[in-house]
C-alpha cells in the first residue's frame, strides 16, 4: 500500500481530486478556487484538470456561494463550497443555518443536500481581523448540519472524501495553521476502510488524565502530553474529529479510568464546545470524576491583533496549566 508524506494542505488537494474523479456530479465552487487554486492553494491544479464547469470561480458573495450550491444540489450535483476564511462565513450564515440545515427535515427527506462547506479556521498565522476565527459552535448548535474537523494529513485526505460522499450537509473545518505540517498518508487505501467520519480517535494512550482536542489543537495537546511526561503525568489525548454529532463513548470510557478531563479549543470558552463536553462528561462520569471537567480555550474577546494572538490561543503552557489545575483539585 502506497504511503506518501504529504502536508495537510496537499492531502486535502489530493482528496478533492479523488472525489472529483469518483463522481462527475462533484463540483467545487468558491472565490479564487480556479486559476489561483485558492488563497491557500488547496484547489491547486484542479480547474486545469477538471475544467471551469466543475471548479467554479464564483462572484464575491458568500451567501450566493451557499445559496446557489443548494439549487445545484437539488439538481443532483454535490457541491463543495470553499469559504475563503472563517470570518467571511457570516454573510452565508442564513443560507447555511436556515436553508442548508433544514431542507431535508422540512421536505421529510425528499430533498437531500449533499453539500460540503469547507472553511479554513482558527488562528496562529499572524493574519488581520476576520481571518482567524473559530465559528464551530454556531454550526454545531444547528440541527441538520454535521460539523467535522481534520487534524492530520491522513484524516484530511480521507475525511474530505467521506464528507463529499455523505448525503448530509457537512461543515468541514480545516486547521489553517496546520496546512503545512507533514504526515504519512495512505493514498491507495479504499475509502470504505477509512476511519469513520464521525468517530472520535484516540491519538495518544495514557493513564492519568484525558485531554480532548480537535483541529489545530490536537498537535498542541500532543505536545503538551509529551511535555507532561517530564512531570510524571501520562496524558490520554483524543482527537474528536466530529464536533456534531459528538462521539463520546470512547471519551467516557477514558474519563472513567483517568477521573480527570481537560478540554482544549481555540474558540472562546463561553457557550463553546467545551461547555457541551463538560456537561455531557459530567452527566455520564460523575462518580468517576476526581475534578470538574476543565476548559482551556480562547478568551471571551474578539480575536485579537496578531501580535498578541499567542497570548490568546491555548498553547503548550496553558494546556499544561489546565492539567496542573485538574490535578490540584
Amino acid at each position, binding site marked *: 500500500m502506497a504511503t506518501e508524506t504529504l502536508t495537510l494542505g496537499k492531502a486535502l488537494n489530493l482528496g478533492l481530486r479523488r472525489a472529483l474523479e469518483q463522481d462527475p456530479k462533484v*463540483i467545487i465552487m468558491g472565490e479564487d478556487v480556479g486559476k489561483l487554486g485558492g488563497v491557500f492553494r488547496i484547489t491547486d491544479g484542479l480547474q486545469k484538470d477538471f475544467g471551469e*464547469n466543475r471548479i467554479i470561480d*464564483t*462572484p464575491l*458573495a458568500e*451567501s*450566493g456561494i*451557499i*445559496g*446557489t*450550491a*443548494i*439549487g*445545484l*444540489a*437539488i*439538481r*443532483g*450535483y454535490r457541491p463543495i463550497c470553499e469559504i475563503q476564511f472563517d470570518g467571511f462565513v457570516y*454573510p452565508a450564515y*442564513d*443560507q447555511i443555518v*436556515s*436553508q442548508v440545515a433544514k*431542507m*431535508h*427535515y*422540512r*421536505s*421529510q*427527506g*425528499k*430533498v*437531500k443536500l*449533499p453539500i460540503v462547506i469547507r472553511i479554513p479556521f482558527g488562528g496562529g498565522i499572524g493574519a488581520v481581523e476576520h481571518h482567524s476565527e473559530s465559528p464551530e459552535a454556531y454550526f454545531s448548535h444547528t*440541527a*441538520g448540519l*454535521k460539523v467535522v474537523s481534520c487534524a492530520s494529513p491522513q484524516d484530511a485526505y480521507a475525511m474530505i472524501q467521506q464528507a463529499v460522499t*455523505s*448525503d*448530509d450537509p457537512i461543515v468541514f473545518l480545516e486547521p489553517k495553521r496546520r496546512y503545512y505540517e507533514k504526515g504519512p498518508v495512505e493514498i491507495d487505501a479504499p475509502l470504505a476502510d477509512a476511519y469513520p467520519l464521525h468517530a472520535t480517535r484516540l491519538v495518544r494512550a495514557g493513564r492519568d488524565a484525558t485531554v480532548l482536542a480537535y483541529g489545530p489543537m490536537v498537535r498542541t495537546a500532543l505536545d503538551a502530553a509529551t511535555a507532561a511526561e517530564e512531570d510524571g503525568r501520562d496524558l490520554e489525548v483524543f482527537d474528536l474529529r466530529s464536533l*456534531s*454529532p*459528538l*462521539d463520546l463513548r470512547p471519551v467516557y470510557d477514558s474519563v472513567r479510568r483517568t477521573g480527570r478531563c481537560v478540554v482544549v479549543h481555540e474558540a472562546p470558552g463561553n457557550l463553546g464546545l467545551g461547555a457541551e463536553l463538560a456537561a455531557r462528561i459530567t452527566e455520564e462520569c460523575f462518580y468517576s470524576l476526581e475534578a470538574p471537567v476543565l476548559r482551556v480555550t480562547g478568551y471571551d474577546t474578539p480575536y485579537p491583533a496578531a501580535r498578541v494572538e499567542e497570548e490568546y490561543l491555548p498553547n503548550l503552557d496553558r494546556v499544561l496549566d489546565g492539567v496542573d489545575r485538574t490535578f490540584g483539585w
Partner: protein
Amino acid sequence: MARGDGGATTRGKRAAPRTQKRGTTGTGDPNLVQLLTPEGERIDSATGPDGTEYRVDFTDEEYRGLYRDLVLVRKLDAEATALQRQGELGIWASLLGQEAAQVGSGRALRTQDMAFPTYREHGVLYCRGIDPIMPLGLFRGVDQGGWDPNEFKFNMYTIVIGAQTLHATGYAMGITMDGRIGGDEGEAVIAYFGDGATSQGDVNEAFVWAGVFNSPIVFFCQNNQYAISEPLERQTRVPLYQRAAGFGFPGVRVDGNDVLASYAVTRHALDNARNGQGPTLIEAYTYRMGAHTTTDDPTRYRIASEVEAWRAKDPLARVKAFLEKQQIGDESFFAEIDEQAKQEALHLRERVLAMPDPQPSTIFDHVYAHGSPLVDAEREQAARYLESFEGSAH
C-alpha cells in the same frame, strides 16, 4: 387548460378577438405590458421596454380554462382564509388580488420547468398540479410542506425573504451544466419573490450570479405594493424592473392583474431562458387586496380609496367581462364554474379538518439523511418519557 401560443409571436393560429389596436395600458404607463384592460377589452399586442412585442392567441376553450383557474384559485384561497379565521389554520398568506400574476405565469411554465416559490404562490402551486391541500399542512402546523419538489417541479415554500432566488439560480446553473438548454425540450427556472425581497442581499446576489453565468432563469417579482406594512417607496426609488439593466439582463413590467399579459411575458422570458438567452426580470405590477397574512391589519397602513382603485382592476372581473363580450362564456358556464369552485372548497375544508396531528416521534424524523446518534438517543428518551404516562392520570 390554457396552452395557447405564448409570449412574443408574430402570427396567431387564428385572429385573436380584438377591440383595440396595439396599445399599452389603461393607466397611461407606456412601460406596463397589458393585453386585457380592466374593462375587459383585448389589446392585440403590447410592446415591452426593449421593443419585444407580446401577444397571445388562445382558443375559446383556453380562455375559459384560464378563467376557471382564476376562480378556483381565488375560491380556495378564500376558503383557507376562512379556515384560519375559524382557528383551523395557524396563519394564512392570502393571494387575493394576485391571481392573474400567478395563474398567468404558472400556466406559462412547461412541464420540465422548475419553480421556486415564496409562501404565497398558491396559484402557481395549483397550476403545477399539486393538491391544494399540500400548503395547508404548513399553515395548520402539521408539517412543513411535504410535497416532492422534484416530482412536481415546484419547490417547497420559502419563508425567509428572497433566499429561494439563489436556490433557483443554482438550479438554473445546473441546467446549463447538464446541457439542457435549447429547443422546446430545454429547461428553465422561475423564481418568485415580492417587492420587499428586492431589498435583500440574496436577491441581488442571485441577479449577479444569473447575469454572470447567463443562467436560464426568470425572476418573477410580484410587486404587490407592500412588504407587510411598508410601501414600495421603502424598498426602492426606481421602478423595480429597471434594476435588471444594472445586472445585464432585460427587465419588463407587466400588468400583474392581467392574466393574458402575465402569461405572454412569462412565456417569452422562459423561452428566452431555455434557448440560452439568459435571465429576465419580470415585475408583475399588482396589488395585495388583503392583509400580508392573517395576523396583520392593512387598514392601519393603507387608505380605502387606494384599495378601491385597485378593486376596479380586478383580475377576474376583467376576464369575465371579456368572455361575456366575446360570447365565449355564458351564464351557465359561469354558474358551473362557481359551483365547481364551491365544491372544491368544501372538499378542501373537509380534508383540512380531517388532517391528523403528526405523531410526536416524527419530530425526530429526517433531521439527517444518515441519522445521528444524538437525535436517536433523544428519540428514545422522549419515547420513554411519553410511555411513562401510560395508565397514569395524564
